[in-house]
């Protein structure tokens, strides 16, 4: 299956189940969870279903485009269902079938895997979903986000897009994956993931392992924190949250270079978390105020019924 087919099918499936189809957030981040659609969406009491693709960067995983399995940047498909529906596992399984995975001939298991993001002050419990021995998804019931209890609890489903595609195609190299087909007057040809991304992998790996200016990144980290605190003081939690995301990525760049000592590490993570938690708190306060002002919240909840059940 082509990567774009997989994405389109997942989007269609979850839209039909009553999810908004969101877009990637235009800042560097390590995982789809960091997108505000999830971070803020999982907070507060309002029902919220959303699905979107998120390109996720992990500088330490960069392999210069030479490792057939590991890359600096990969694609996650992220689904948030709040509150988690009673048949959430069945829904997930249905989505696999929508991708053409015939479970009557495959082995599917849910194995314990609890998720935690110290930089976001978030954690949850759940599973890695294992298909014929391969982890294809992460399934999490959020318990806390931004240091606040999630009530109601969201279910988060994360699909590893490249992995699932490789697995379905039986391919041994991520860069051989077909991304999609380009049709022109002269004919059509398939573009591979390698054509799309291999050079990018090389350059970004080289950047994070060799060329990134560490002093600059340390300075940036401080500057983003200062900026974030300033915005939070104004009550601008969305702007402040962007600064927290930038801090997180800057930290990852430094970490990939081994520039963060073990003793230094918890302190740095805490600074990002403090800002993220501040944003979460400000968001919830803002929402509570807004919902006491508006009158027909229960009404909108009733209308939403039927989705993702």
């Amino acid at each position: 299956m082509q990567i774009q087919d997989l994405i389109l099918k997942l989007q269609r499936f979850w839209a039909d189940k009553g999810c908004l189809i969101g877009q990637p957030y235009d800042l560097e981040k390590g995982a789809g969870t960091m997108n505000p659609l999830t971070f803020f969406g999982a907070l507060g009491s309002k029902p919220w279903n959303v699905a979107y693709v998120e390109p996720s960067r992990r500088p330490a995983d960069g392999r210069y485009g030479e490792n057939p399995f590991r890359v600096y940047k990969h694609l996650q498909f992220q689904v948030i269902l709040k509150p988690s529906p009673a048949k959430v596992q069945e829904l997930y399984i249905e989505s696999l079938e929508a991708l053409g995975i015939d479970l009557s001939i495959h082995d599917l298991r849910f194995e314990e895997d609890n998720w935690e993001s110290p930089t976001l002050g978030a954690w949850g419990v759940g599973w890695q979903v294992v298909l014929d021995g391969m982890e294809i998804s992460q399934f999490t019931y959020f318990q806390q986000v931004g240091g606040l209890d999630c009530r109601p609890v969201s279910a988060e489903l994360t699909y590893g897009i490249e992995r699932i595609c490789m697995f379905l195609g039986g391919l041994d190299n991520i860069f051989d994956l077909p991304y999609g087909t380009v049709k022109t007057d002269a004919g059509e040809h398939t573009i591979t993931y390698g054509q799309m991304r291999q050079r990018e992998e090389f350059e970004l790996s080289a950047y994070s392992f060799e060329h990134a200016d560490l002093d600059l990144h340390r300075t940036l980290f401080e500057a983003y924190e200062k900026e974030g605190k300033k915005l939070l003081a104004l009550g601008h939690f969305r702007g402040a949250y962007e600064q927290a995301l930038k801090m997180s990525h800057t930290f990852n760049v430094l970490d990939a270079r081994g520039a963060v000592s073990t003793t230094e590490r918890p302190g740095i993570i805490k600074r990002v978390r403090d800002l993220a938690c501040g944003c979460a708190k400000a968001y919830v306060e803002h929402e509570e105020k807004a919902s006491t002002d508006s009158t027909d919240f229960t009404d909108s909840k009733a209308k939403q019924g039927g989705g993702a059940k």
Partner: protein
Amino acid sequence: MSETRTFLLELHCEEVPARFLKPLSEEFAAAIVAAFGVEPEGAYSPRKLSWSCPMPEMQADQTDTQIGPPQRMCVEDGKPTIQGLKFAEKWGVPFSEVRFEQSAGKKEPCAVVTVTKQGRPTKELLAEALPGLIAGLHVPKAMRWGSSDFEFVRPIRSILCLFGEEVVDFTVDGVKSGNTTWGHRLFHRQHSEPIVVKQPEDYEAALAKAGIVVSFVERKASLAKQLDQLASEVKGRVVADEHLLDTLAEIVEVPKIIRGDFPADFLELPAEVLITSLKEHQKAFCIEGPDGKLLPHFLTAANRADDPKGFVKSGNEWVLKARLYDARFFFAEDRKHKLETRLDALKQLTFQRELGSYFDKTERVMALTVRIADLGGLDLSHAQEAARLAKCDLRTLMVGEFPELQGVMGGEYLKHEGAPEPVWKAVKEHYQPAGADDALPETDLGAILSIADKLDTVAGCFSVGLIPSGSKDPLALRRAGQGIVRILWERGWGKHLEASLGIAVDGIGTRAAKPKDETLNALTSFFQDRIAYQLEQAGYAGSVRRAALACGWSDLRDLKARCEALSGFAEDLRFASLAASAKRIGNILKDESPSDAFDQSALQDPSEKTLAAHLAKLEATSDHKTLLAELAELAAPLAAFFDAVMVKADDPKLRAARLSLLHRLRQAFLRVADFSLWQ
């Protein structure tokens, strides 16, 4: 005796983490015992926890005695008072049934009634009790889901609860109990309705029909059998791993082993790497051939009864290849630079905040290893080299990926570099024993390096006040200490421990937060406990252990010899008498300071003269066994002595001689054992 019916409860959940299944099953069974007095049999699979047992139809009647006000307040002039009548009314009996008795603890006769509470139907009680018992289960990592505040290990999706053929009605977090449950997911691709269980006796068969073997024991046995068979089909045997087998039986609902293959060129990797990689990443077993070498096959479990198109096999093979590709990449990358080039990078790796980096630790362990090796007359240059390189593999990619391969990889890399055999072997095995069941280092140098490394950890932590107490031992110092004692004990290295403690503490130097004496005292008592445990593990009787250990452990080999000798007399009744006399001697000498020398001629009684003769023989004997035989002979004369004489005689000369005699006898005992602690 009323009729019995079978009780059955099943909680059908989303996949419960494997590690919690058994504890939850056992805890709930215990809760049922506490509430109903019968122990249910538990069964579990990833999505199911169930319990079943016969229970009486009705709970037994309960008779209670109720005590009321004193008689004088209940009866006046032969007539009941208002208070008396109220008491009878309270318990629903006519006043004529009120008796007056003086119960224990009361100063005067009081009103007493016997009230019979009729036993209630068990089904009713179950319905009342179960929601609380379920909610009350202790869940180590509890979660919430949906919009509810209810917490459990994973979401409960349905509840089956029967008492005989009847449903026990209750609700937990909005889930109502019933007589239905769900089978394997594959089964429900064809069947949209839940399966009905008419009576508890049908439960296992109904689930089996729906694709689930609910008994853990049954699944495990089946997996074990399949493993053996599939391994023998390729002329090999499974590399056993009981823990992995348990895990597999806990993560599948139906037991099925799949055998897959991997490219033979991965066999170039060290066996430990393959075994660890297969186990950690793929929950798979390795297969070894008759020559003990690994074969290019693996075995793992699937959560379905078959593999109709071979996808389960090929899928697992695909993932495994990716994993081994990674392992081979690490193995090749790591060997691009000699192991010792990582030494400097150990400076950035904290061992413990107060005790510095692994580089600091390496320097201490080097010094300590050389000192201990010197005691055993080993090659000191090898000792120093092994200690210097021991921790370098912590900075390799492979150990970064598989922390449990620490030591093993260092050894492997050194072997590839052509390091001397004693050096690479010592590095490879210096983490052994990692636990009570783990093997000990095989080589002398490996044993010494292991002792030095662990002793530095223990002495270091004690020096900065990190001393295990009660159940708190986050740094696993007791395990490290036990490992040291086991190695010394098995190797018969008697005097190494006492000699090394001071050296190890000195090695901590200025990093120590506590005075040396205090640390040494704490270490001495810590190791005494470890040695006591070692004696217990070696199977010596309690009296032998106590009596022998009380005379010190500065020489472990001698301690072992004394325990062996004492064990030969464990059943000897004369030793009981000897023990009584030894206690008496201890009491007599408590506040005395007798001199070693005494005037034999001052002794008068024949019984004490006999003792003096025995003493001479005892003091001339060096062998423990002979000494004990002579001590056994001494039991009767000693008892006779205590019968015949007053030790603390008025004559100061006689008294001094008797005290000295006893003192010298005791000194002779104490060479083997403190008999006052016998029995």
